[in-house]
């Protein structure tokens, strides 16, 4: 939780500094929520995943994080990516209503609200270089790539490296080490 808190505080602090306000002047920060932590993690995935060059229009093209379905993060995700650049590329957040736009994303968070259409979504994304992330149960086993799972109050990752590879993505071994491998019955 320290990480989350720290990240959250860091995000808050950066925002505050950007706003020219003192952190101390703000009300005491609350313990970050799992959503806030996940928002930060979403941003961090952009650092540990390599997309093929074809996934971008050009070198300046942003990394697009899409949120399909209901946005559980509130402003946290926006805050997390605000002003950041990864490997020279800006990071943008898009909120998607339709599955059609999902293919243009590089990281797609599938909100739990979309559980019903999960298979449809995953199928639609076949052949596209999109890292799929979700809190949904059995997501990794269902063909998703990374699932957030809360263990002992810590957000943990379950990664389906095969799916990612199938989508043409290279996941950093460090990410794989830090994540719990997707075990049957747990993904």
């Amino acid at each position: 939780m320290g990480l989350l808190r720290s990240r959250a505080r860091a995000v808050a602090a950066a925002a505050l500094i950007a706003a020219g306000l003192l952190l101390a002047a703000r009300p005491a920060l609350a313990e970050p929520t799992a959503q806030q932590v996940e928002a930060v993690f979403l941003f961090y995935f952009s650092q540990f995943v390599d997309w093929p060059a074809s996934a971008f229009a050009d070198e300046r093209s942003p990394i697009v994080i899409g949120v399909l379905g209901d946005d559980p993060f509130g402003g946290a995700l926006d805050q997390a990516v605000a002003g950041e650049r990864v490997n020279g590329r800006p990071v943008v957040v898009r909120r998607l209503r339709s599955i059609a736009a999902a293919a243009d994303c590089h990281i797609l968070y599938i909100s739990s609200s979309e559980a019903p259409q999960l298979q449809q979504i995953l199928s639609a994304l076949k052949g596209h270089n999109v890292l799929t992330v979700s809190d949904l149960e059995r997501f990794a086993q269902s063909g998703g790539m990374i699932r957030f799972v809360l263990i002992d109050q810590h957000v943990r990752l379950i990664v389906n490296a095969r799916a990612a590879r199938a989508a043409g993505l290279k996941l950093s071994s460090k990410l794989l080490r830090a994540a719990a491998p997707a075990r049957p019955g747990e993904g």
Partner: protein
Amino acid sequence: MPLRNLPIRRKLMIMLLVTSGAVLAVTCAAFIGYQYAAYRAAARHTVQTLGDVIASNSTAAVAFDNAPDETDVLAALQAERRIVAAAAYDASGALFAHYPADAPASAFPPHPKHDGLRFDAGMLLYYRPIRQGDNTRLGTLYLRWDLAALHHQITVYALIAAGLTAVAMLLAWLLGRSLQEQISIPVQTLGRAALAVSEKRDYTVRAPKLGNDELGTLTDAFNHMLDQLTADIAERKASGVRLQRQLSRLDLLHRITRAVGERQDLRSIFQVVIRHLEEQVPIDFGCICLYEPDEEVLTVTSVGAQSRETALELALTEKARVPVDSNGLSRCVRGELVYEPDIVSSPFPFPGTLAKGGLRALVIAPLRAESRVFGILVAARREPDSFSSGDCEFLRQLSEHVALAAHQAQLYDALQRAYEDLRQSQESVVQQERLRALGQMASGVAHDINNAISPIALYTESLLEREPGLSDRARAYLTTIQTAIHDVARTVSRMRGFYRPQEVQAPVARLDLDRVIRGVLELTQARWRDLPQERGAVIELNTDLANPPAVIMGAENEIRDALTNLIFNAADAMPDGGTLTLRTKRLVRQPRGGSQSTTEEPPAEMVSLEVSDTGAGMSEEIRRRCLEPFFTTKGERGTGMGLAMVYGMAQRHGAQIEIDSAPGQGTTVRLLFPAAPVATDETVRQLALGLPVRPLRILIVDDDPLIIESLRETLRGDGHRVTAAEGGQAGIDAFEAARAAGEPFELVITDLGMPYIDGRRVAAAVKAAAPNTPVVLLTGWGQRLTAENQVPPHVDRVLNKPPKMRELRAALAELARAG
């Protein structure tokens, strides 16, 4: 003790140890420093590398909040033991994970500090960001490296270095001990030599040279310096000696000059010079010769006392004559100083002579006064080449001084002689003047006495000859009167000897010396017999007269006076008595080698008259001078004229005087007269003859009536016709008158001294009128005829007063016959 006062050995040792120690220390320090720096660099590098690796591996764990994973990553650090602590902080700076995992969180910094490496309290601290690629910082990695190992290592190195240094210095000390001798021994040797020189002033010390290094050069330089020092000292000593010698020579010159200055005669000057030269210079042979330029001969005048033997050997004793040869001597008499360093092979006679005496080096210095060399100074030594230039210079200067002194002595001598001559001349003049005055007085007295007794003598003689009726008593009385007159006349005549030393030449006649001697002995016996007897002294008389009696031609009165003088002298020489001997001898004598006599002169018959005494005798000096006028040994009692008169007599008689005398040996005075020719009968006859054959007309001129009267009477008694004139003018008038009357006088007898017209003018007038008329001049003895020293002009005969009939008759007979 300060380092600079330490002995060189210890200095060298200290330098060696300090140097090697310093080198080692620097080396070790550099090594350790390098090690230290290298270690630190290596540590930094390792820490950075490890940090990079760990940070890279930590990104995902930090990013995705996986603390256990991070703890695993950090645990990998245990492979590096020197990483004692590590920690990871999240982006907010909170401690996230740490190593070692079991350490309490308080063991780590609560928050990360600035990125970078820093050393802090023996630790190397490293903070670095955890970042995936170039992206946003995920957290901070902290590593702590313990430098204790480094410090431990440094300590070990330091210990090793110290030990190494100690060993090295020990080694250096051991090596240095043997090596330093290469320097310290030569230095000590040099030092000892220098000490010996400075303490003992021994400049013969030389430092041994032990190598060809700088010390060798220094030793050489030191020895060279000593050489020069020795040379300098020797030179200074030599110059000191020279100076000393110069001074002593100057002193000697001064002493000689003083000694010379105190002397006035040449011989003594020369002697003192030679003596000083022999004793002080010194020389082996020294003499002084005088130069006679006319004969080109040197006469040895002075020979040194020590040179006498050599001189004897070389025939160079005093008075020896050395001809001036062509080399040294001739150069010397031209005024040069001659120095012959070695005469052993000299071809010239004089140096050759000296060389025969074992002499080798010769200096001849001229004695020069008024640019004329009058002598030479000869100095010689047995050692060849032994006269230095200083010696020569000394002799040259000395010879100048000596020459000057000798010249002054000669001048002084000449001056003394001139003064003595002057004094004698003065005395002689005074004496003569006194005698002349006395003579004048005496002659006046004699004149008056003779005038006074003339009539007595004439009348007495006349009476005794012509008066027939004389009683025996009268005849005896007259005879006594005649003898008395005769004695008076003789007494007066003796006065002449004292005031008239150069009398008119007395008539020369044959003299029987026996008779003269006996007469004189009789006359003088008061002096040689009676006076000594009053004092109790006895003078024996011894006469040794030739037989037959010796006869000479001479003036009796002069002979008599001379004999009287000789007898007086003999008596005076024997105040305590003795023997007086008179001796005559006839002898034939070879003509003496006098300069005037011709060598062909035949042997002459001589008569010797000797007067000998056994008295005090005379020294050589007195003997030489005794004939000088006014020379006397009798003080106020003597006139100094006696022997002078004898000498004058001898000269006038062609006689020689010989004097044999020595102090204490008595005196013999010998007069050598030419013997008289054998007397002819004619002479004797003429002498015996006295009477004129015919009566004459005679004019008598005199101012004394008594004389006129007595003469007239006497001459008339002889049958002459006599006219008398009283005074000169009257005489001349009478002579003229008689001539005018046709009865001229056949003979004139005139007195000499008369008022207005004296006898000379009368004689002149007579001769002017009648040159053939004889004139007889009568003189009171001692009249001024002495001044003219001859028979005056116009006078045919001079007769002394009182006139004797015999003499008068003889003169008249002779003149009448001639006329």
